[in-house]
């Protein structure tokens, strides 16, 4: 065991920093703009991702054969740490680079990889995740969007919900039911879907933090070529598990633009750094950042050794969501009476209010805290699962919402 960075890693970090310093400007004080979700933000992300790709910094952990750097996800983390000091974002590629890409690499055919990975990596195409439905959230395998084979196409009908970024997506990863007579986990198929296909209607939902971030997506007789099935027909659940593990790792890896220094800056600006209670909170925040960093590294090590970190990713995501909640509360609390304000009236343009209003969503999106705890209980501790009336019967016969 060695908690210190190896000379090779330190050199990699230095190389990344030098390149970033030449190609991006340092981040100023963070403001609420950090969570913007508008076309200008999409354009900014695309431009930066192309810059990364040109210089060989896009998808550092992907195999070189698909345009990646062929390094490890630890290197990606090192790069991300340095990148977070600069005023750049790859936020709209969260689903593409964080989930769709790794799933394609693990389960895609060579044709699929050749078609989808390069434009994804260059930032030409934005992806979204069509998993959750009004009737299927934590119980994702309970989804009822239907896909039926018709010639060389599947015809898809159903409704998805909470789809982040669907409004500016080119492609989607889609989970749909191809067999209603099998048990719920067994009749699912995983597709890649062209979001420009006829029959797709995207309706925005306004989120609590004021940002139009996610959507309802209605699918009516949408045709998907059978060639766009990822993995086997009716084998979608296993493919989805790869996506979910990557999602948890991605969320837990902390894409938030808030660093410890931002929290200290806020406390200082509010004149509260001499308050012993605030100091204790800052000290606790510091330890949380450290714990997350090291658990993150441990997961990178697992990836590097070719293991898919299932339960570890759940632990990381759980710790991260608690962390974000505490940070959101802390930022607002140190502001005193001004903490009650929102938008431009609030300090730092409402950044901390945004953090506060978004923090609870971390505990829901990507699988809720309870779902992650169940993973830890069942897969790590080996506790028996709760009795499940729904697990083995044909999906058609289940009681549903």
């Amino acid at each position, binding site marked *: 065991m060695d908690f210190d960075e190896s000379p090779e890693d330190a050199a990699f970090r230095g190389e990344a920093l030098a390149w970033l310093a030449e190609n991006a400007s340092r981040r100023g004080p963070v403001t609420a703009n950090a969570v913007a979700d508008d076309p200008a933000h999409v354009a900014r992300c695309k431009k930066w991702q192309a810059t990364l790709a040109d210089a060989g910094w896009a998808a550092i952990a992907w195999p070189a054969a698909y345009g990646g750097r062929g390094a490890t996800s630890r290197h990606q983390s090192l790069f991300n740490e340095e990148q977070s000091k600069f005023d750049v974002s790859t936020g709209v590629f969260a689903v593409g680079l964080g989930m769709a890409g790794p799933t394609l690499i693990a389960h895609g055919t060579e044709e699929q990889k050749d078609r989808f990975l390069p434009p994804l990596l260059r930032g030409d195409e934005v992806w979204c995740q069509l998993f959750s439905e009004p009737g299927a959230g*934590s119980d994702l395998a309970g989804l009822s969007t239907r896909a039926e084979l018709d010639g060389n196409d599947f015809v898809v009908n159903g409704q998805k919900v909470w789809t982040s970024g669907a409004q500016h997506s080119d492609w989607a990863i889609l989970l749909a039911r191809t067999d209603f007579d099998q048990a719920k986990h067994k009749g699912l198929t995983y597709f890649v879907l062209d979001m420009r296909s006829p029959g797709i209607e995207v309706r925005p939902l*306004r989120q609590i933090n004021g940002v139009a971030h996610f959507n309802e997506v209605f699918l009516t007789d949408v045709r998907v070529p059978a060639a766009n099935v990822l993995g086997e027909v009716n084998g979608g659940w296993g493919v989805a598990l790869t996506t979910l593990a990557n999602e948890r790792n991605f969320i837990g890896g902390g894409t938030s633009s808030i660093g410890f220094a931002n929290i200290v800056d806020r406390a200082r600006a509010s004149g509260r750094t001499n308050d012993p209670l605030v100091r204790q909170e800052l000290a606790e925040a510091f330890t949380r950042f450290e714990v997350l960093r090291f658990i993150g590294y441990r997961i990178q090590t697992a990836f590097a050794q070719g293991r898919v970190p299932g339960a570890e990713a759940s632990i990381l995501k759980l710790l991260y969501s608690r962390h974000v909640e505490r940070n959101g509360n802390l930022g607002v609390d140190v502001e005193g*009476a*001004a903490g009650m304000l929102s938008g431009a009236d609030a300090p730092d343009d409402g950044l901390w209010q945004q953090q*506060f209003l978004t923090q*609870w969503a971390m505990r*829901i999106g990507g699988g809720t805290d309870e779902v992650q705890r169940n993973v830890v209980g069942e897969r790590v501790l080996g506790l028996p699962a709760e009795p499940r*009336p729904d697990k083995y019967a044909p999906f058609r016969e289940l009681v549903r919402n």
Partner: protein
Amino acid sequence: MDFDFSDEQVAVRDLAAQIFTGHATVDRIKQIEAGNERIDRDLWAALATANLLGIALPEEDGGSGLGLMSLCLVLQEQGRRLAPVPLLPTIALGALPIAEFGTVEQRSTWLPRVISGEAILTAALDEADSIDPAAPRVIASAGGRLSGSKVVVPAGHIADRVLVPASTPDGVTVFVVDPSADGVTIDVVDTTDHQRAAHITFVNAPTEATLGRAGDGAAVVRWILDRGLVGLAAIQLGVADEAIRLAAEYTSGRLQFGKPLSTFQGVSLRAADAYIDASAMNVTLWQAAWRIDEGLDASREVAIAKWWAADGGERVVHATQHLHGGMGADVDYPVHRYFLWGKQIADSLGGASKQLARIGADIADAYR
């Protein structure tokens, strides 16, 4: 000991519930949130017509004389429905102090107009750079002219008069200020719960009168603050009760894994914890309000009630938000507003740690 409400109190509560439920529908609240004032004037008029604005004010001023507990019953119903009306600032921070400390003239000028719904009042207690409202940085000259600023004054953007504590050469004094006077600037600000408040800046601004004697202001401020804190705890109790009811209903109706969510212990235990918090909020609120009505010292009890409202209240709205899953994020579904109000109330007039500090100081004093 008797933990039941009197028939009269039950009648007040039922009347308030009926009016708030009738007016503050989700659609109406959305409509108000899209407007400028963020106040439901129709509902305000209905409360006046039902005689609820004067419920806690003395009978000799035209009120019903039913005490702070009756006001808290009304505020609790307001919290349940998240009704956008300036009840707490007008009554607890404005009218009650005028009834207690005002001259005959001040009482006869303002209280009838409050009771009829014509006047909106408030007190400007918070400052950006002072943590104790009874030790303000806003200063008043010997001639009663104010300089300095107050922040996040509830209903400050629509109030007809504002009570303003200021430091004077003779000590702290509370002044009555006409916000439309020269030298007073009102900056309307948005709060996280979709309501509005005001930052108020005074530049050599005139005052109309003092409330209470010059130099006695610190005691007046503490008196006002205690009514404000208890009032906030009452609103928070309504917020918490209704949020728990919504979560119980939602998780019982929604199926995942082939059964209602509420049958998972992870869900039901969290809901039960929320209910336990609300029970503690309930008893601490009523103890504080009762002691104030009985004329007993309530300093510690007020802080305990507000501490539970802040700490327990926040826990409740986090739980109810969480139990709604993704539904909690959608602004077209009502539960998120309980989350927003819960946080806002928790932080108003001093958050949890401020109350703990007050309780701690009080205990250290008592057991010396």
